[in-house]
């Protein structure tokens, strides 16, 4: 057979319904359908090498083309061309062309446009890669169960979550077996049963044990897909929410811890917004205000406390928010609406919003009322101790000085005595020694009297009639008073009672009256005025005279001191005032003096009338 005879007549080929071309063994186009020429934008002329026609096609080289066309098997390949910015895709299939004796004569090429198909393919690829990425990023896996075939499909992510190999093929019982034994497994079995039977969808947080034995929280969801009213498939998602659940749990635990802590702190804790409204209060704060948290939230200090106190607190809040500097450990006094006061040690710390601006404060107040009271008591005690200490030192000096001066005299006189040869002089020295000994005894007696007062801890105070005691004193001193022609002006009410140790009252009256007489003015006879009045917590008793008076500028601080005498008076011991001052102080009373030289003095005695 000759080649020419085997040629298909051109009219025949032209009638092919699809775009077809015939290529000879030599690679030259024999003929093609009209539609084929249209695709390749060529004149309807054959006789050119086939690759010339493919020249306008992209995604295809001459070598590739030759491989595709001249094999012994059918080949399909794709190519594209640009047509006004649009890419047109084609698929050509080449099949070998044999004669009757199976000699290869060339090949047929069928070409068809597949642009739409390619685009669909691209879209699908995009969607599936998108889905995969999404599933990977969100850690959301999916699964599908076919009711008819009982086949279970897990997506890559679902497998990853189960920590099984990518080629793992699960069964439904294996799938359920991954859930943790107990609640999770029972629950999923029931849910799965329900969805298969009734199509009830589910979404549940459960725990699984992965292939590697890790316990993890997952969110499993399922939805039935129906076909012709029958449940055909179950589609579901599967999400690893372990970190989230753990974080949630941790947050809840921290929150719980924080709440327990704040609530049970033995200090008042409160959080206020920028308008100083309370937005959080703890138990201690509620108890202090005697109400519930609900009643306190939204309230300001003006609703809860005295106006003045509330304003101070508001000013503090504003200052803390303005400076953004915490106020630490300030002593504050709170006055509640009912007037009761509490001492607090308060700290206020600014709360900053995300822009770094203060939009509220955290406050902490510790009730230090008790501590304050203790402090006050302690301070009083320290004062008392300091005074007593001073007194003691003073007394020690007096003792050492007075005793020392007597012993010094003894020492000196004995030294004289040893060396003296003259008998007459010896006698004189001996007389002196006796005198010194008498002085020492006197001094010791005086000191004893003072010590007695200071050590008299258990004072037996009694309510005594002042007037009666004055009369008694006047009787005891009658000779002395008569001798100096003393006149009294007594304004003491008959029924006035004072609280005193009887012996002390006697001593006070005796000393003040004898002093007034001792320091009388040489030009006039003594006149003593006695007055007494009951005041708030004490009785004020005064003794005024018309005597010499005392230069208080000079002696003011010394007048009640021991062994201080200010007048040239032989009777002065410098002890009387010292002793009655001690007696009065031992009874929580006091004594003071006012005086004008040459006119007279007034001694003011205050008896403490408070019984403890």
């Amino acid at each position, binding site marked *: 057979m000759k080649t020419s005879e085997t040629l298909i007549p051109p009219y025949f080929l032209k009638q092919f319904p699809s775009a077809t071309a015939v290529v000879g063994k030599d690679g030259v186009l024999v003929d093609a359908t009209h539609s084929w020429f249209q695709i390749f934008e060529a004149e309807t002329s054959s006789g050119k090498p086939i690759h010339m026609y493919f020249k306008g096609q992209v995604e295809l080289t001459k070598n590739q083309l030759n491989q595709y066309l001249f094999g012994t098997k059918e080949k399909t390949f794709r190519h594209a061309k640009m047509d006004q910015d649009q890419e047109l895709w084609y698929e050509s299939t080449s099949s070998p062309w044999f004669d009757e004796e199976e000699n290869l004569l060339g090949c047929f090429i069928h070409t068809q446009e597949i642009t739409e198909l390619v685009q669909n393919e691209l879209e699908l690829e995009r969607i599936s890669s998108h889905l995969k990425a999404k599933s990977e990023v969100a850690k959301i896996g999916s699964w599908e169960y076919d009711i008819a075939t009982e086949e279970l499909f897990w997506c890559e992510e679902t497998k990853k979550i189960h920590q099984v190999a990518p080629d793992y093929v699960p069964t439904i019982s294996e799938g359920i077996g991954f859930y943790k034994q107990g609640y999770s497994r029972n629950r999923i079995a029931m849910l799965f049963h329900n969805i298969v039977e009734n199509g009830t969808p589910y979404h549940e947080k459960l725990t699984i044990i992965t292939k590697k034995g890790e316990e993890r929280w997952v969110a499993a969801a399922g939805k039935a897909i129906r076909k012709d009213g029958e449940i055909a498939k179950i589609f579901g998602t599967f999400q690893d929410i372990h970190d989230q659940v753990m974080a949630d749990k941790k947050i809840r635990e921290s929150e719980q811890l924080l709440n327990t802590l704040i609530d049970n702190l033995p200090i008042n804790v409160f959080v206020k917004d920028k308008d100083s409204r309370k937005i959080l209060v703890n138990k201690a704060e509620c108890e202090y205000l005697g109400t519930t948290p609900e009643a306190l939230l939204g309230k300001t200090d003006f609703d809860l406390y005295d106006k003045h106190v509330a304003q101070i607190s508001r000013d503090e809040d504003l200052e803390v928010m303005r400076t953004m500097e915490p106020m630490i450990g300030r002593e504050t006094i709170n006055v509640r609406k009912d007037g009761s006061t509490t001492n607090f040690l308060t700290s206020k710390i600014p709360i900053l919003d995300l822009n770094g601006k203060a939009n509220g404060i955290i406050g902490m107040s510790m009730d230090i009322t008790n501590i304050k009271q203790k402090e006050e008591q302690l301070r009083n005690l320290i004062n008392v101790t300091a005074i007593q200490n001073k007194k003691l030192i003073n007394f020690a*000096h007096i003792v*050492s*000085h007075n005793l*020392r*001066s007597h*012993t*010094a*005299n*003894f*020492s*000196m*006189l004995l*030294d*004289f005595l040893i060396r003296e040869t003259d008998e007459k002089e010896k006698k004189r020295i001996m007389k*002196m020694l006796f*005198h*010194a000994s008498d002085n020492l005894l006197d001094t010791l007696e005086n000191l004893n009297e003072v010590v007695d007062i200071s050590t008299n801890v258990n004072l037996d105070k009694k309510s005594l009639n002042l007037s009666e005691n004055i009369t008694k004193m006047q009787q005891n001193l009658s000779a002395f008073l008569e001798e100096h022609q003393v006149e009294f002006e007594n304004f003491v009410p008959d029924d006035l009672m004072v609280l005193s140790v009887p012996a002390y009252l006697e001593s006070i009256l005796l000393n003040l009256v004898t002093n007034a007489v001792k320091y009388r003015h040489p030009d006039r006879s003594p006149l003593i005025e006695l007055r007494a009045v009951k005041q708030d917590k004490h009785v004020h008793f005064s003794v005024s005279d018309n005597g010499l008076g005392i230069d208080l500028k000079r002696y003011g601080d010394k007048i009640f001191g021991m*062994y*201080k*005498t*200010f*007048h*040239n008076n032989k009777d*002065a011991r*410098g002890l009387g005032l010292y002793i009655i001052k001690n007696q009065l102080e031992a009874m929580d009373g006091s004594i003071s003096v006012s005086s004008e030289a040459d006119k007279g003095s007034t001694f003011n005695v205050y008896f403490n009338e408070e019984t403890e």
Partner: protein
Amino acid sequence: MCILMKKLNSIYIIDDDPITVFGIRKMLKAITICKDITEFENGRVALEALKQRVEQGLPCPDVIFLDINMPIMDGWEFLEELVSLNIRERIIINVITSSIDPIDYKRWNEFRLKCWHYLNFKNKPLYKIEPTDLSRVHMAS
């Protein structure tokens, strides 16, 4: 050692304790010849006497024995007044006290530094009066 009987014109003893005054007089007898020894029982009377002396243009005492603890006017007050008197002569003042309180010694030292007169500090008991208690001029010279 040569003990010379020092001759003095006038001595003041200011002390309210008669035994100490007796002692000082007795000790003075042993060391000096002085016809004018006057005693005062407090600073006030001594000061008045001294002022009078100055007013009359009489010489001041050469030596004063001064007690600290006295009624009416004590030794310190007396010294304070004496300083303000502006006496040209330098009096030897022997401060005598039974006190062993360091504060008294400090006070004496303050007076010593600001006072024109010679100040000695003597603790009781006294047994003997030294020549230096009576004179500042060296005996041998």
